[in-house]
């Protein structure tokens, strides 16, 4: 063979090596402080719990069993763990409801902002970005103030004479849902806005000119073009909801725990590190399933529009 292909390949290899060197610091940091620790979590999930937290280096599948089952102390029979199943179902259910709630409020809001004249659009967008950049804990405290026993709603209802004594709204599923929908709402508005802004309204007008009904136009012209934004917004809300820790902790307390809080308990008072590790992997897998579903939805769509 001639020399030319070789030198070209050498140059390519040299370029690739140089690029790897450039990326090395970032890659090393993430390998050491994220990927390696996650591998340790996988390992810990198949060990035996130690007496005071930590683990003993004895192989055991008990941690994984305990994710869904509990063993009777007396006769060793297995039964489904109601407590864990409730928390698992609550995590998925509340995350889906949070996504639905942010869709109901977020999509019209994004539509509204995108259809303003440019100057007004910048103003409304600014109003969405402020809560987006505000500390999540601060925003959770703000919602808490609304529904506390002595909070805004209860005092308002008492003053109006609608109720005789405060309604207990905190530490319920409702409180967690309200808190999560409030803190994650901007995550829905921004991607949907980006999609609607790109929408060419002449397409919808063309639909009208051809006597399409409003609903038909919405369904057949607008929705397909805005769909990527809606899907992106849904995943941006669903994924952090599923792994939420701070908001359910403040709004739900010990009564309405989510998966994140259950995991934390295993490394605190509960002290069952292998179970905590197995739960962590379960949560991560749920998130990965959602992400894979998301990529398949979006890449499938692109395939169709090109075809």
């Amino acid at each position, binding site marked *: 063979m001639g020399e030319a292909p070789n030198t070209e390949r050498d140059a390519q290899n040299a370029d690739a090596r140089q690029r790897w060197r*450039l990326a090395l610091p970032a*890659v090393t940091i*993430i390998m050491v402080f*994220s990927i390696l620790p996650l591998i*340790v979590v996988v390992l810990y999930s198949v060990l035996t719990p130690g007496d005071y937290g930590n683990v003993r280096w004895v192989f055991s599948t008990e941690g994984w069993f305990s994710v869904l089952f509990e063993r009777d102390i007396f006769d060793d029979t297995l039964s489904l763990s109601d407590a864990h199943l409730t928390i698992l179902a609550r995590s998925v259910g509340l995350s889906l409801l949070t996504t639905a709630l942010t869709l109901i409020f977020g999509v019209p*809001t994004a539509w509204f902002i995108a*259809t303003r004249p440019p100057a007004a659009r910048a103003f409304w967008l600014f109003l969405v970005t402020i809560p987006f950049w505000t500390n999540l804990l601060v925003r959770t405290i703000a919602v808490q103030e*609304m529904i506390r026993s002595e909070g805004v709603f209860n005092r308002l209802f008492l003053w109006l004479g609608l109720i005789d004594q405060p309604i207990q709204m905190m530490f319920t599923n409702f409180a967690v849902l309200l808190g999560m929908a409030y803190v994650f709402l901007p995550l829905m508005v921004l991607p949907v806005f980006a999609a609607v802004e790109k929408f060419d309204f002449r397409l919808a007008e063309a639909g009208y000119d051809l006597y399409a009904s409003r609903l038909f136009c919405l369904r057949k012209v607008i929705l397909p073009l805005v769909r990527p934004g809606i899907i992106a917004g849904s995943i941006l809300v669903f994924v952090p909801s599923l792994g939420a820790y701070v908001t359910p902790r403040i709004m739900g307390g010990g009564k309405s725990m989510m998966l*994140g809080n259950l995991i934390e308990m295993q490394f605190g008072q509960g002290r069952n590190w292998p179970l905590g590790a197995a739960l962590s992997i379960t949560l991560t897998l749920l998130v990965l399933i959602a992400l894979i579903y998301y990529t398949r939805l979006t890449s499938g769509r692109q395939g169709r529009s090109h075809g």
Partner: protein
Amino acid sequence: MAERAFNIRRLPGVATLAIGCFVILYIPMVILVGNSFNAGKVIGHWEGVSLHWYVAALHNEAFLAAAQTSLLLATLAALIATITATMAALATTRAADFRGQGAIHLIVNQPLMVPEIVLAIALLIILAQVKQATGYTGLGYLIAAHTTFCIPFAYMPIRARLEGMDLSLETAAADLYASRFYTFRRVTLPLLAPGILAGFMLAFVVSLDDVVMSDFLKSPGQETLPTYLMGELRRNLTSEIYAISSLLLLISVLIVAGSWAATRKKA
């Protein structure tokens, strides 16, 4: 005909829902700030307007120490994350596909794909042992953890900027016999600067916002602003919490307004 006057941009009910959405977003925050001016100690019992709790917060040693830790931590983590993310973005853009390109991209984004609580637990397992073995209880653990989850946030805008950049200016510089380093410093870097700035700010805010990582990995006595606030929330609900929250809110408003002004000037 009524149907002809109908404007597609104004779907029925949209404006109502949107305005409702803004009201819902802002009422809790307005009430929070309002409560911070309450003269009384017990929240919810209005005793007149006063700056008392802001003064109290600014004289509170624990709060000031936490603020200092938070700013130092966010600055260092964002700085390291931005530098390494810029290098990684330069490595993964503007080239023919090379072996491992996808792998680098995936690794750099990996912290985004795992829930924060899981990452915090994973790091706790390892770093607790390092802490025990070395006896070091400084800020290093938090800097490492924050840098890790800040890298993908810094990487996103920098990479986006690089992908949108015109290669011809750099080619022109090279044609004029500029060295690779000179070209990078005088052509690439200035063009990339807005992306780097956006990446730094995003990383800075994400670090400042973090509760979970810091709460799990901090050494005894160490507090960041959010963990201090979380602790106060657990211990005693006084109006000072609202003053501190309002100060944090003010920081976000300043950052958003600042970046808004910066991008507007350029446009």
